[in-house]
């Protein structure tokens, strides 16, 4: 297969075949982490700039590991607050990146549309979306696919219940896109106040009862619930949330016995997920972290190595 993507802004343009091919390549990258020397020279001489405008240790470190294992040169650029802190506009940042000769920019930003904006303005560099506002987090979706596939094999026809604050979640949006492309049917559950207004346009169903969503599901995906939602008046209390939609042993028991329990991290133990579930036999949460590095390596290698 000829890899035709230079950037990853959203998985919208990826075909199912491309996803399959990608996940296989990620499998081989996974193997690299078993070697004594976890480094290959594939991206030697390429410069990758990690532009994180939003704080994130986990995602940044995951990308950094992937970049370094491929021998790329890594520059970490974090600007806290908005892109206009210290008066530097994003347009100025673009010119700086271009002048630096960056081959790739990994960007996380609180505003929707920033990776699109950068990819339109940067002529040379590849742009990888590490999270733009509430819109998307495509590498999370890829690692979730990789991780789910590792446990369940072929995902075609599987059922997924995604439970939690979907409205504010970029992970949810990207995962819905990605899993649907692989043939998975997705049902959302959670408080109606934390759901997007038009779930039908996303190709998913919504049921308010978590039990109904979990019944027979092959994948149970739990989203973080932030305490601010209680302050915003969108849910009455954290305790009520946990009782009605939290990942408890009894909820997980309703799913298929081999079901994968997933969470994008970091977890609020006792809020959206009970410790017994997080550490339980169905949980692939730790695997998700490992998949994260493998998947990001595959992404960097395919988009930066090879013919362009």
């Amino acid at each position, binding site marked *: *297969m000829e890899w035709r993507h230079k950037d990853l802004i959203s998985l919208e343009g990826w075909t199912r075949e491309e996803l399959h091919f990608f996940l296989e390549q990620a499998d081989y990258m996974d193997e690299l982490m078993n070697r004594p020397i976890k480094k290959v020279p*594939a991206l030697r001489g390429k410069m990758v700039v990690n532009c994180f405008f939003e704080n994130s240790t986990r995602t940044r470190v995951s990308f950094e590991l992937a970049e370094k294992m491929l021998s790329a040169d890594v520059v970490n650029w974090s600007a806290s607050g908005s892109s206009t802190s210290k008066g530097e506009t994003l347009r100025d940042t673009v010119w700086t990146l271009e002048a630096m000769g960056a081959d790739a920019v990994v960007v996380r930003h609180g505003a929707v549309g920033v990776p699109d904006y950068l990819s339109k303005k940067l002529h040379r560099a590849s742009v990888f979306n590490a999270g733009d506002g509430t819109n998307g987090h495509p590498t999370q979706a890829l690692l979730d696919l990789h991780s789910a596939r590792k446990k369940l094999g072929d995902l075609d026809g599987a059922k997924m219940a995604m439970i939690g604050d979907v409205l504010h979640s970029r992970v949810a949006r990207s995962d819905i896109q990605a899993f649907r492309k692989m043939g998975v049917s997705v049902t959302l559950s959670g408080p109606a106040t934390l759901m997007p207004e038009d779930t039908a346009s996303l190709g998913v169903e919504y049921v308010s009862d978590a039990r109904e969503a979990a019944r027979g599901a092959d994948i149970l995906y739990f989203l973080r619930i932030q305490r601010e939602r209680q302050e915003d008046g969108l849910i009455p209390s954290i305790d009520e949330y946990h009782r009605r939609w939290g990942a408890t042993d009894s909820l997980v028991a309703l799913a298929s016995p081999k079901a994968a329990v997933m969470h994008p991290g970091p977890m609020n133990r006792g809020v959206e997920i009970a410790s017994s579930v997080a550490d339980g036999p169905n949980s692939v949460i730790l695997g998700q972290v490992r998949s994260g590095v493998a998947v990001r390596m595959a992404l960097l290698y395919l988009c930066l190595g090879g013919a362009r």
Partner: protein
Amino acid sequence: MVKAQSGQLWTEKATVMTEGDMERVLRRIAVEIVERNKGLDDVVLLGIQRRGVHLAARLREIFKAEEKVKVPAGELDITLYRDDISTLADQPVVHSTSLPGDITGKRVVLVDDVLFTGRTIRAALDAITDLGRPERVQLAVLVDRGHRELPIAADYVGKTIPTSRSENVEVRVKELDGTDGVVICERNGGAGHGVEA
């Protein structure tokens, strides 16, 4: 017969090894390996993806049958060590690498189908260095087609075939191509390079 490969059209020109030839050649190489290493102690076969892996498996079978020794065999993918990634027309696809245990202190015999510019072997040596520290590394190839670009030589050669740059040497194995054999192909018009080895 016209066939599409690497996006170009190749026409088969001549057969340089039949199925029978290939079997005889592999047996001869197996004997040479035993002679050169004075036995098969600490010998590890490492097949280079993709066809080298199957050739290594054949050698392993021969050792089992003739010498009654089970020689460990592994697979090595060198895609991530290539130095010519950005010049290839095709996206180089990564395949599996799996070693039959630690290779430190062992006598590794790299097995590949065609030796051409030598760059694949250079990449393989780099990969091996990252995977362990063998006592020695030897190279066995089915075909040497000349046009070396690096100072690399094979220890065991099945057949030396002089070729021109516009030709391509294709090794076929039953496991992947349905038949065994080696053919020479000619490029049909168009620019571009053949598959390098």
